[in-house]
């Protein structure tokens, strides 16, 4: 019994990591219908930013996280202005290929700057090891991950429901033409959303280093997981991403626990099955 609880907990924690990595893509995809496969590369950027900040500048881990967020967000603003914007409304194939090209370039730059070696983050001691609760041992870092993800979710939900910008974003996601008609600067809204989403990917990348490591292939590696979360959850939906990520994490971990023989298949079976029945994802509207 206690094993099951721990397995579900671990799966949920992993899912929350995926949530932070992918929620930005879901919103930007829903908003602009722009398939940004370079989203994982922003995660990678965040990871390297955090590693560099800690190693060269001596930042503590908790300060490295916002650094990662900022680095990814700032770069994404530049790229959005110069590159991405040119392909809004272009065929999806072109979007896919432009952004894949960017992942290639990003991987090469990372190799040039940091080498192919695995990067390491030394956690502060209070985040290491595990704590015992009701006779079960929970990893401290995983509790931390869940905490961060819940804070992010709360901020996002609050921001979307209660702020002016949030209302504008919701209006733009629902119906761009109407939003434009109402005099909203949809391009600017998208630029901000894009930066926020990429920033979150950067944060996710920094958080992921401890769990899965970091090397120049990170942008490719996590892309598949991120895309699964987004497509299963449904575009443009924070709830969808949250549920999709949690489902993915839990199914992945629980599947491997109960049926290790097919553990590697399970999430892909789930992906194909869900999309076959609901091509728009669990919470997708369009």
């Amino acid at each position, binding site marked *: 019994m206690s094993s099951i609880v721990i397995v579900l907990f671990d799966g949920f924690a992993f899912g929350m990591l995926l949530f932070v990595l992918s929620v930005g893509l879901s919103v930007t995809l829903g908003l602009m219908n722009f398939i940004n496969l370079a989203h994982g590369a922003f995660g990678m950027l965040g990871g390297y930013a955090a590693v560099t900040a800690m190693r060269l500048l001596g930042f503590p881990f908790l300060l490295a996280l916002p650094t990662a967020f900022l680095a990814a967000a700032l770069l994404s603003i530049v790229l959005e202005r110069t590159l991405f914007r040119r392909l809004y409304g272009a065929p999806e194939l072109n979007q896919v290929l*432009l952004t894949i090209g960017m992942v*290639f370039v990003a991987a090469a730059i990372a190799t040039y700057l940091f080498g192919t070696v695995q990067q390491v983050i030394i956690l502060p001691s209070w985040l290491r090891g595990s704590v015992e609760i009701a006779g079960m041992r929970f990893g401290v870092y995983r509790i931390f991950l869940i905490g961060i993800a819940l804070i992010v979710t709360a901020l996002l939900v609050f921001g979307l429901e209660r702020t002016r910008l949030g209302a504008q974003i919701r209006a733009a996601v629902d119906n761009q033409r109407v939003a434009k008609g109402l005099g909203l600067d949809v391009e600017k809204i998208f630029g901000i959303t894009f930066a926020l989403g990429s920033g979150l990917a950067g944060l996710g990348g920094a958080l992921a280093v401890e769990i899965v490591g970091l090397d120049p292939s990170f942008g490719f590696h996590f892309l598949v997981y991120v*895309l699964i979360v987004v*497509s299963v959850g449904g575009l443009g939906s924070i709830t969808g991403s949250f549920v999709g990520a949690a489902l993915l994490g839990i199914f992945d971990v629980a599947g491997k626990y109960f049926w290790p023989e097919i553990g590697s298949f399970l999430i*892909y079976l789930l992906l*194909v099955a869900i*999309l076959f029945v609901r091509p728009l994802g669990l919470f997708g509207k369009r």
Partner: protein
Amino acid sequence: MNQAMSANANVDTARQWLKRQSRWSPFEIVFWLALLLPFFLFPTYLPLASQIAIAALFALSVDLILGYAGIITLGHAMFFGLGAYAAALLAKAGWSEPLTGLLFAGVFAGLIGFITSFMIVRVQHLALLMITLGLGVLTLELANAMSWLTGGTDGLRVPRTWPIFNYFRFDLWGYTSYGYTLAVLFICFLLSRLLVNSSFGLALRGIRENVKRMPAIGSDHHRHLQKIYTISAAMAGLAGALLAQTTSTVALDVLSFTRSADVIVMLVLGGTGRLYGAIVGAIIFLVARDQLAGINPQYWYFWIGLLLMVVVLFMPKGILGFLSRLAGRRDND
């Protein structure tokens, strides 16, 4: 009002116009003759040339569904790999005759293509990308799980392929390999050319242009899509089988996501929906990769990535589309 056709146009000119659309141009003949040049000019590049021919065949199979029917796939390596394993396992079982092996692999991949096509035609956009990707990864994982049969990550060493027509032995220089792969590519190209110029090809273009209208002109377009998906899968299987037969080796990478992505990149570099784009794209991609990797093995993908971005931003119809626009031909966008 327009000069394209005189006002008293008649049926005969309409027929002729349509016929003219599928006529061989001198460029095409020169192009195919040029593909024979490596035999004489660059004999030491024949191994590369035959892998280019294989990649071109694979890209051609993807062009049929992506360029003509508008199905984007991120998992077509699935069929390439199934074909490769089918040919390899047949050879392992003691039958290394190349042509029957090729046929067997094509039929097998086509069969799997037909079965999966029922899923593919139901979805579009991101869901389509993800389902093709998911099926591709599932096949890879399945092949890995069945490593007793497939050799898993270590791969299989395939028994040497018997001489073609019991005469042309597969040599170290690659003369036979290139001749063989080029011939298969050419035959498949002829079939594809016939296909895209047929009424079926017209129906596919209709689907690509406006899928919503198709049912309203009485088209059961799902069946068209299933048919072309099956044909494309079989052709990808042929390409995989060629690889297994000419390299005497097959490993899990034939099924990898990278292979699925590379083929799309090649196709877009060359230009989709024009058959030759697949071949030109494969040539550019593999030659560039070969040269760049030779100069700078660690960073060649930087240049590939950059090339890809430049093509997408400045030549959205691929290199061939760009060239034909420069030449001011009919393919305006």
